[in-house]
């Protein structure tokens, strides 16, 4: 980050969070620090990096200062402005929000594909096994030896099917936990307040 970049972000981050003169003091202070670090031999990028992330500095500054009480009229105009900008900007943040939601949904679907596959496989095994066992007596007439093969295969399939069922249940449990975590994370993102920089 360049020094100008840093100062711009710091200034715009502080605006509205600290009184104007305090913001000016903070910007001057950190600007002075950056220039002193550079004088000491560091490059511009290193000096800016050493001072820290403008976001963090804004949080630190805003945290230690009480917000000035807003005057009644300015709150109304500010609120009107906020709504206007919100509506005007809807195509932008709306599409971003939609895209984010779709990505989250895709992740969820991919998550569920695994247990779904497991369920499909177990169903196939169990059904096939059952059919094999039941149909075996009806097997090729006369060649009852083949009926045995069919019966045996049926049992094998049933046994395998049972194992796959157990695997699917375990995987479903894991996926359910993953799904809940994903969902809660998604909701948490909506609730978290974010710093607006420039």
């Amino acid at each position, binding site marked *: 980050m360049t020094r100008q970049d840093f100062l711009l972000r710091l200034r715009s981050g502080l605006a509205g969070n600290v009184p104007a003169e305090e913001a000016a003091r903070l910007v001057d202070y950190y600007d002075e620090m950056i220039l002193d670090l550079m004088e000491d031999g560091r490059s511009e990028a290193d000096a800016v990096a050493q001072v820290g992330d403008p976001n963090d500095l804004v949080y630190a500054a805003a945290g230690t200062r009480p917000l000035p009480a807003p005057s009644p009229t300015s709150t109304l105009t500010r609120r009107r402005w906020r709504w206007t900008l919100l509506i005007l900007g809807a195509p932008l943040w709306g599409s971003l929000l939609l895209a984010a939601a779709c990505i989250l949904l895709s992740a969820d679907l991919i998550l569920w594909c695994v247990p779904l596959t497991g369920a499909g496989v177990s169903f196939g095994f169990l059904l096939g096994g059952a*059919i094999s066992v039941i149909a075996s007596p009806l097997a*090729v007439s006369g*060649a009852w*030896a083949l009926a045995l*093969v069919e019966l045996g295969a049926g049992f*094998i399939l049933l046994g*395998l099917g049972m*194992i796959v069922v*157990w695997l699917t249940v375990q995987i479903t449990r894991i996926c359910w936990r993953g799904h809940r975590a994903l969902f809660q994370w998604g909701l948490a993102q909506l609730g978290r307040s974010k710093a607006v920089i420039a």
Partner: protein
Amino acid sequence: MKPRTWFTTAGTLIAIGTLIALVGLALVGFDGDKLSDLARHWYSVVHFN
């Protein structure tokens, strides 16, 4: 049911099934033609022909 019972049942089924199938195959003499007959029969059952 308990996982142990589940796995025991599954394992038993597989073991018995393998045994029976092998016996059947032995009696058939591991004949490829007869086995394809079996396969065709199974196919028709599954497809309700």
